[in-house]
């Protein structure tokens, strides 16, 4: 067994699962892999036929009729685009591509829609590696979206400092404010966990519950819509053939990778997660390391919140990022990072996030009702987790082995 094979071993099962899922789609979903190169001109511009990621959440609060309609509409668009009969075409001059061309198709859409969970999973992986958990990221997303939407509406109205920069540039202000606020939220979580020694689940539960209230306070209970080109570009624009959000994920992944693996930060995280007391005895400032991971996780939640708001061009404090903390945790676990802490795998978490999004998209394309979509999703998830369990694999193998042995006798 050489070193490189060990290094990638954790990726095997998530990748196998993803491959199986894609294979399923290749066989049973028409044109799943069809990727077109679209030329960017204003008449042909196609808005991403995204399925809003908070569909399950919307289904949960089905009372809200508006939400239900949204689900219907999304299903409709997916069906149409899947059949390639009527690609919904809209005039939309916001999705500007640098070179005038970009790729369009379901796999690209999965990456675009999965970007939020991928970004969340990066931060979540680090937190989980220290033996912690952050269940507040969904609510922090809502806060980030809310502050960004509020500021951009104030800038649009001209009653905020910086409005003089003009709409082409002043979107930087809400983006920066959202990131600062979400990083502060992470700092708060870190303070409760590392500073005061509160159990991570309880500490982050505070913000999970209160965060949406904070977001409501910011937006005064309204859903604020916006159409600032800069802000909309984040999750709807294209650059270098791909959705801009994909490049955000790539950048975050590279930065996180460098930060953890080119410095000693990653080693310290794994050490603290594996044996906190011994790490302290070895001279590692365990509390500071843990604190820092929550701050990073908060920042990631801020980026995800901006993507979510940008995607639907509004800040919906009730539904933005709803239940996404669960998807992020799931992506991390599927990626091979143990909930007990210790070794972590950022690349595995990304594959996990893509797997979850592929699953969600597949459900919608197969016309599974949003009301029951969680059931098949749960089934696939349990299969992936079982495949990853050495105990389960040994059991299955021993069954096959004994059958083979019997066959040999006959």
């Amino acid at each position, binding site marked *: 067994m050489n*070193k490189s094979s060990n290094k990638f071993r954790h990726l095997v099962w998530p990748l196998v699962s993803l491959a199986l899922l894609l294979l399923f789609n290749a066989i049973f979903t028409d044109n799943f892999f069809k990727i077109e190169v679209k030329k960017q001109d204003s008449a042909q511009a196609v808005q991403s036929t995204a399925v809003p990621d908070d569909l399950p959440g919307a289904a949960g609060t089905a009372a809200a009729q508006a939400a239900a309609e949204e689900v219907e509409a999304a299903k409709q668009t997916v069906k149409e685009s899947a059949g390639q009969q009527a690609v919904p075409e809209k005039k939309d001059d916001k999705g500007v591509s640098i070179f005038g061309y970009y790729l369009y198709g379901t796999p690209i859409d999965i990456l675009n829609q999965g970007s939020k969970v991928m970004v969340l999973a990066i931060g979540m992986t680090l937190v989980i590696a220290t033996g912690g958990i952050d269940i507040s990221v969904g609510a922090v997303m809502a806060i980030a979206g809310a502050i960004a939407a509020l500021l951009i509406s104030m800038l649009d109205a001209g009653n905020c400092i910086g409005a003089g920069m003009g709409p082409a540039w002043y979107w930087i202000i809400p983006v920066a404010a959202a990131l600062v606020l979400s990083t502060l939220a992470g700092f708060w979580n870190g303070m409760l966990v590392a500073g005061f020694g509160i159990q991570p689940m309880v500490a982050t539960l505070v913000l999970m519950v209160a965060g949406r209230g904070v977001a409501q306070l910011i937006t005064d209970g309204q859903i604020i819509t916006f159409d600032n080109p800069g802000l909309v570009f984040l999750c709807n624009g294209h650059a270098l053939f791909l959705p801009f959000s994909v490049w955000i994920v790539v950048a975050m992944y590279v930065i996180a990778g460098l930060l953890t693996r080119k410095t*000693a930060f990653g080693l310290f995280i794994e*050490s603290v997660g594996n*044996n906190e007391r*011994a790490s302290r*005895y*070895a*001279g590692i400032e365990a509390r500071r390391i843990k604190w820092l991971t929550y701050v990073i996780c908060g920042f990631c939640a801020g980026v995800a919140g901006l993507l979510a708001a940008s995607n639907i061009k509004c800040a919906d404090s009730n539904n933005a990022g709803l239940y996404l903390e669960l998807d992020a945790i799931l992506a991390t676990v599927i990626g091979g990072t143990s909930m007990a802490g210790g070794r972590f795998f950022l690349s595995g978490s990304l594959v996990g996030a893509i797997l979850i999004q592929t699953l969600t998209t597949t459900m919608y394309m197969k016309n599974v009702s949003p009301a029951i979509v969680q059931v098949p999703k749960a089934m696939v998830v349990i299969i992936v987790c079982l495949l990853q369990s050495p105990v389960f694999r040994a059991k299955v193998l021993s069954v096959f082995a004994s059958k083979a042995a019997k066959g040999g006798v006959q």
Partner: protein
Amino acid sequence: MDLLQTKGIEKQFLGVKALKGVDFAVKAGEIHALMGENGAGKSTLIKIITGVYPASAGSVYFNGKECKFRSPLDAEHAGISTVYQEVNLLPDLSVAENICIGREPRTKLGFIDKKERKVQARKALARLDIDINVGENLSSYSIAIQQLVAIARALDVDCKLLILDEPTSSLDENEVKELFKVMKKLREEGMAIIFITHFLDQVYEVSDRITILRDGQLVGSYDAKDLPRIEMVAKMIGKTPDEINQMQAGIVKNTKFGDTVYEAKGIGRVGTISPVDVSIREGEQLGLAGLLGSGRSEIAQIIFGVDPHDSGTMTMCGKPVNFNSPQKAVKAKVALIAEDRKVTGIIPDLTIRENIMLALQASKGIWKTMTLKQQEEMAEKYIKLLRIKTPSGEQLIKHLSGGNQQKVLIARWLATNPKLLILDEPTRGIDVGAKAEIEALTQQLCGEGMAVIFISSELEEVVRDCDRVIVLRDRKKVGEVAGSDISLKNVMKLIAG
């Protein structure tokens, strides 16, 4: 007729052969000592017998039948009970709950019969002549009592074979005597006992037969009375008796001391230890002696900043310092190899290389990193220097035996090039060979000018190795002896008061 028999047991871990065909037999009504160095395969053999691991090859016979236990519970049902070195009980449950866990007496309605449980627990403890309140939490008793509770629990089932893995390492002399009395009594009752220990005296005190393992292979089984002690050690480490005598004679005490490295005046912590003065010079080896719980480890923890002091002052190389966290102590080149290896030492899922570089990296901080090549060279160097038994530095530390883990921890701190090295029970639970190596190493380090504080329950070691000994009783310093005054008798007198 043998009660337990193993034939050709082999076990492979990730390419490492831990056992290479071991035949081993135990009769009913005998105390059988299983001896060998760290990594010889004792624990692995026990774990295969009790169903913790499956064997890669070979078979286990118990009571004349071939057995394949799938779990320790399985083995327990068949009549094999095990007490491990680390107490495997639940500290936050009561003594009675611990003893009866998994086999609680039931009332007619199927609820747990709490009264009956206490009665049963008291009965089980009475067999060991222990009289404690079984309703108290286990954690409110000393480690020694907890160990005896673990034994009582093991005996409570219908047990034919009792395995004691290092049961005495946390017991004091009287407790050991009590335990031996119990063991002999059980032998009279016809029980077979497998006894693993590193204390050679104890082996001869109670054992009938001795089986020796080396490097995963059986060296042989002998009647205890036919095997002289020096020969047993020779067989364990694979050297001739002459070579061993040379090894022991090879330890030379350093006598040249330099400037004061560390000095503390009246450091103490309320509820932990009364204020004491500690000072140590370059090249000096200072012993801390006293009974378990006398405050030895507590002083180490205060010096290292794990439990910050709340009175007194300290200086390092003449400069005033305030170690209120381990980070500060590490940066000032103080190293502590703490008592409980599993809890405060190893990071189990990291590799040997990562475990070795950890403290050095921690003192450098996050940004100043070492290249992989530098790390590998460092690991390689210490694996060779300390003779750590492993196929490579990329092995996870949890796969090493206790003594080799201890060596990795020593390597971790030597890599930081400390001025003051504190060793808290470095020789506990490791074998004679490794003990001699560690003793020789500390002397060599002193010769190079390092200051060493040495804490050990084994007074012979303290007396043999230290230049000065501080004696503690009831969390107070009760005396200090130096130079030629250091003798077993003098130290014992101070300890006893």
